[in-house]
């Protein structure tokens, strides 16, 4: 469904992502891991078409660079890192904005039955339907994060790209969010790529892992085959050992 070929991208002439390739089949969930500054977010933003890039991004065989913004937004949604909101839209209105690429626009544009159904379903998925009339400026960081996920769902794309979606969330909501993402990708014709900070959560969410180090791919493959040695080298700390030590505390 999504195929990325030899992607290079950076800021001010210096490449941060250097020749990354990966492919995603339908129903797959890929997590991008790597230490700070390894190029995870840059990779995601380049795939979303927000940064100038070299190399190719193919969506069902079509070059994404050739698609107009609106058409691209019907196929790919991005959930950015949490940013402040300044204007007091209601939760419902905010999620309805996800329908933007599907609407005609213009003076007489009204919410259609399909728009309303998509918004309701998305809000129910993240458990915020009861909060639909609250202004987003009054929500907690965690609630806002779920509103933005619902907006990505309402966009009804084939691919959802997530940049650290579980930041600011309590453990309960981290698990709920990954669960609602898993349920979303289970429908035919969908896949998801997520950048994660929390390695345990990433491995619980994804079936495949892309491990980045200095903008290069160190590992690409099934989540269960990721070995201890590679992780230790990339993160410069014994990750698996730390996890075991943590686990002991609970036994």
């Amino acid at each position, binding site marked *: 469904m999504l195929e990325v070929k030899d992607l290079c991208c950076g800021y001010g002439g210096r490449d941060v992502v250097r020749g990354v390739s990966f492919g995603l089949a339908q129903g797959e969930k890929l997590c991008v891991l790597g230490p700070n500054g390894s190029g995870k977010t840059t990779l995601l933003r380049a795939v979303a078409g927000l940064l100038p890039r070299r190399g190719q991004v193919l969506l069902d065989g079509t070059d994404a660079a050739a698609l107009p*913004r609106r058409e691209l937004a019907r196929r790919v*949604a991005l959930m*950015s890192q949490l940013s402040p909101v*300044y*204007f007091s*839209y209601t939760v419902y*209105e905010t999620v309805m904005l996800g329908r*933007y*690429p599907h609407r005609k626009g213009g003076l007489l544009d009204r919410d259609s039955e399909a728009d309303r159904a998509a918004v309701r379903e998305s809000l129910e998925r993240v458990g915020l339907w009861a909060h639909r009339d609250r202004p987003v400026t009054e929500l907690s960081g965690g609630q806002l994060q779920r509103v933005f996920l619902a907006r990505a769902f309402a966009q009804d794309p084939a691919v959802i790209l997530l940049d650290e979606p579980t930041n600011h969330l309590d453990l309960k909501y981290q698990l709920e969010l990954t669960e609602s993402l898993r349920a979303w990708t289970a429908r035919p014709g969908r896949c998801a790529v997520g950048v994660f900070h929390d390695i345990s959560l990433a491995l619980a969410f994804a079936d495949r892992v892309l491990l980045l180090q200095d903008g290069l791919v160190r590992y690409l493959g099934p989540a269960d085959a990721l070995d201890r040695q590679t992780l230790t080298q990339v993160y410069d700390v014994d990750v698996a050992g730390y996890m075991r030590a943590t686990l002991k505390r609970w036994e």
Partner: protein
Amino acid sequence: MKTGTKMTLLALAALLALLAGTALGSVSIPPGDILAILCARLFGAPLPPDIGPGYPAMVLDMRLPRVALAFLTGAALAASGTVMQSVLQNPLASPFGLGVSAGAGLGAAIVIVTGLAAGAMGNVILPAVSLVFGLGTTALVLWISGRIGRGNGGVTIVLIGMVASLFFNAVMDLLATLSPSYAQRINLWQLGSFSMREWSAVWVLLPVTAAGLIFFCCQARALDVMTFGQEQALAMGVDLPRVRAWLIGAVALLTGTSVAFVGIIGFIDLIAPHVARRFFGAAHRRVLPASALIGGTFMVLCDLAARTLTPPREIPIGSITALLGAPFFLYVYFAGRRRERL
């Protein structure tokens, strides 16, 4: 209260303000007489005999054009302010921040000191030149920020706009200092006034304002999306560079045209959008028409105060908008806050 009810009340308030603005002044004209004069003019109905001899001329040639000009200017500035705040994702942004007013001011100052303003075509040349200068300055600001601003368009535009405004204001002050005989005229122009009261200005501003408002309303959804930031707007399918350029261009045209006729009138562009959002929420398809109505109504009332509070002297309209606007704004803003907390 429902949105439709609120909008109707707002439209009624606007009509009342227009009526009051026409009725009150050095001579008060009864509202019934105003309607009779309007009917006579529009539908050829016979004028009742008991109407004062000077009234028709006063209503049709002096009060009405002035009130209409005030309303249109207020509406244009308020709608432009709403759009700028959303495009730049900054609740304190203003169309004047684009350098429109400073550029227009410089243009006007040049026309004034060269003596062209006092000439036969002065009433045409002054607004035309200042509009060209205002649009030119905005184009310059956008061009410079496009060249240096990578990925951070909003902040760069605000900064470059501020630098350009300060620079052109300084040049205007320099011109005023070097030609003291014109300094007062330049100064008065800067403060803004509706005293020119000419229909020709209304006939230019009306279609520009109407077209601008319709265009903004067509882009209401894109504006909604843009308030969440550039990255999210792009990811949701807004063709940001193109849409933003069109919107800013329209704002510059709207603001530039009104500034060219009436001078620089601040504050309404800033407060009307916030008042509108208090009562109508954040969605642009409601906020845009609401802030235009609020801006227009408020401007008519301010102009009424400007010419009736200290007769026969007129208070500069810019001072009135700030004098009345600041406390009104604080009241609306904090009254709303308190209610929400309870």
